């Protein structure tokens, strides 16, 4: 997208930055650590819905002030500017609220996939609506029987004239209950190997044929959902990509998902200080000060190591992006950032808890810095699982980046209906 930008006529980055700064100062609220929203604090439903409504409102404000869709082409309602403009907006948003609930999966991977594979009509219909904050999208990708093995999807789509009829179940869709549209990977052919019988569809999720159940996570968080599609009818015009070629879409889809998780997507807006919902290593200093361990060399070693790991993250992402763009590294090298990102997050969720001592296990509503550190620790592994497990990242790095032999698989060159599925893999 950025390749099409005519940099001689585009708005200069510094003009754009000044415009963004004056908009933000006049319209957006400054936020603290809790305001960013972290894993440890979950809101009652009515408050959650209010937060989502505000996110839509902020997105609409961005749209009204020509700050939405910075890197999205102008013909689809975007600004057609460069990643440098987006970066300027991200930097100016540091310390302020932003439309967090519309970034991932809405902007990426969903909108990014639409931009890659949607027809002109599909893009015209949805992308401006997304940029106005009217459509929040969700991924219908994982299934109860297939987490890492995404291409093993059992949700079926059967053609019926100009429509498709979908049946099956999807899971781990964040915030489906307050979202609008779904991007869904379904099986359209059971008589070919698994990667060759998939197709991608889109549909509104609030309709009688889609039942949404919420999942309570071990920390009480209820953002994740599971959905059940029963004879859901989708017009063929809402198919994305070719029939049975869904894996071509799926590969880009998961590429965008990895880039989104690494905050390396030019179509996403993310404050420069807001990585993964944590306010970065300075929180470690706050916690150590709160518990009187600021002068403890052991505490300082933990703080220094955590700071070290996080300082390496941004240059690593830049190196990988350069290496992929210049052909020095495989496109799959994004998995390297995913694995390093896990180390950063693991430290961010473990070290504050470690520093807090017993306060990591018991806190009160009156606590601020020490609030909920134990919950963050409990749910830590979610970051090593969501968006592709770190084990899958290690497979991708060793097999796709280093070219090592692939794992033996019993689902290759076999019609999908004949692939062994085990007791948990029945449709």
């Amino acid at each position, binding site marked *: 997208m950025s390749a099409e930008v005519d940099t001689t006529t585009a708005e200069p980055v510094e003009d754009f930055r000044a415009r963004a700064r004056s908009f933000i100062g006049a319209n957006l609220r400054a936020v603290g650590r809790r305001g960013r929203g972290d894993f440890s604090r979950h809101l009652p439903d009515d408050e959650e819905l209010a937060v989502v409504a505000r996110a839509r409102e902020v997105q609409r404000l961005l749209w009204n002030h020509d700050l939405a869709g910075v890197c999205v082409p102008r013909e689809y309602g975007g600004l057609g500017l460069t990643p440098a403009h987006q970066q300027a907006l991200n930097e100016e948003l540091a310390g302020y609220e932003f439309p967090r609930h519309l970034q991932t999966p809405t902007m990426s991977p969903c909108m990014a996939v639409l931009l890659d594979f949607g027809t002109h009509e599909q893009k015209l219909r949805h992308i401006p609506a997304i940029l106005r904050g009217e459509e929040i999208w969700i991924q219908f990708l994982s299934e109860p029987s297939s987490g890492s093995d995404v291409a093993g999807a059992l949700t079926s789509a059967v053609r019926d004239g100009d429509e498709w009829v979908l049946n099956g179940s999807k899971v781990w869709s964040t915030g489906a209950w307050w979202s609008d549209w779904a991007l869904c990977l379904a099986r359209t052919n059971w008589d070919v190997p698994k990667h060759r019988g998939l197709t991608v569809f889109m549909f509104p999720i609030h309709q009688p044929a889609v039942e949404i159940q919420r999942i309570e996570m071990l920390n009480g968080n209820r953002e994740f959902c599971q959905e059940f599609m029963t004879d859901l009818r989708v017009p063929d015009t809402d198919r994305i990509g070719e029939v049975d070629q869904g894996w071509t879409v799926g590969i880009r889809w998961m590429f965008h998902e990895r880039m989104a998780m690494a905050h390396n997507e030019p179509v996403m807006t993310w404050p420069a200080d807001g990585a993964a919902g944590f306010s970065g*290593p300075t929180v470690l200093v706050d916690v150590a000060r709160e518990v009187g361990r600021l002068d403890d060399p052991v505490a300082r070693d933990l*703080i*220094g190591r955590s700071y070290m790991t996080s300082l390496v993250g941004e*240059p690593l992402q830049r*190196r990988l992006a350069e290496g992929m763009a210049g052909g020095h590294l495989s496109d799959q090298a994004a998995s390297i950032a995913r694995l390093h990102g896990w180390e950063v997050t693991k430290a961010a969720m473990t070290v504050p808890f470690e520093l807090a001592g017993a306060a990591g296990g018991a806190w009160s509503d009156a606590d601020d810095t020490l609030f909920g550190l134990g919950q963050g620790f409990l749910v830590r592994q979610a970051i090593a699982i969501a968006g592709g497990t770190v084990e899958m990242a290690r*497979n991708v790095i060793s097999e796709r980046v*280093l070219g090592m032999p692939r794992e033996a698989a019993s689902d290759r060159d076999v019609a999908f209906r004949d692939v062994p599925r085990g007791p948990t893999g029945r449709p």
Partner: protein
Amino acid sequence: MRFDRTPDQEFFRETTVRFLEEQAPVATLRGLRDDPVGAPPGYWRRGAELGWTSLLVGEAHGGGSISGDGLADLTLVAHEFGAHAAPGPLITANVALSALAAAGSDHAATIAAGVAGDARCVWAHGEPAPADRLGTVTCTITPDGDDVVLDGTKRPVEAGAEADAFVVTGATDGGLTQVLVPADAPGVTVTPLTTVDLTRRAAAVAFAGVRLPRSAVVGPLGGAAGPVRRQEQLAAILCAAETTGAMQRSFDLTVEWAFDRYSFGRPLASYQALKHRFADMKVWLEASHAASDAAAAAWSADAPDADARASAAKAYTGEFGAELAHDCVQMHGGIGVTFEHDLHLYLRRITWDRVVYGTPADHRQRLAALLIGEAA
């Protein structure tokens, strides 16, 4: 090592690679094991002719960079030094020359001789325990009439036994001072040490009442804290770049081995238990490249985060360089712990770079202090 090297930088790097392959192949390195200097005769002067010593010294002193960013150019040499476990006092000589050049034109003759490779001037900074934590200085430099008097011990001093002169960091009335000390000055005692590296040498250097003229002072008397900090960053960055080169070579050798070595009828590279460890090593390797290059760029720009970036690069490569090198040994099995195999050449260099100019633990303490906001 950055991907976006200019054609001139690439020519420069390749020239160094060819030179190292000809002058210091692994068989030669093994033969230097007990050599007091640890390098073939004439080696350092010829390296200086290639530009190894001129990059951080301005043109006024006979130096000059390839790309306009002398440290970016020098990290390419450091990378290849690691990848070839090359002999020569690359890091300490360049830090000393940089310190002299940054202080002005008072030591032009020493700089010229150092740039030409005719004389070796090295930095004497680290001290023996319990004063061995990064930034601790107990050597004293005391003004006395028209002279200054230097007392204390530096250890380990890279290339200390072969040095012609030392840039010594000492304390003066609560501030820091640096002086240029000829190795043959009265009161200087040099005791060679045994190092973990096959060719990089070190010594303990004692200074007992060494009297020097005021003109020996490098930069301001008592006001060298800023320059010393820049030198610490520089040494850390060069260690990180060199370590990354040694990591790259170890990793490449081990990936090749994993494809070629068969056990139970399969290549090692086909075992998931090993593939996942190669994936972790690849992350450490790419992150080391990125951290080193980011630190070098911050130093060249004199950026506000130069201190943190340098310490992050040193702490990261020190920790994960050693992890990677030991894992490469493990992947090789018994052959990996023999003198015959090349792996230890790189493991040695990584180990040496880990302990000099601040251990990973020292740099983590510095990072914590920076984050806390102390003027540490």
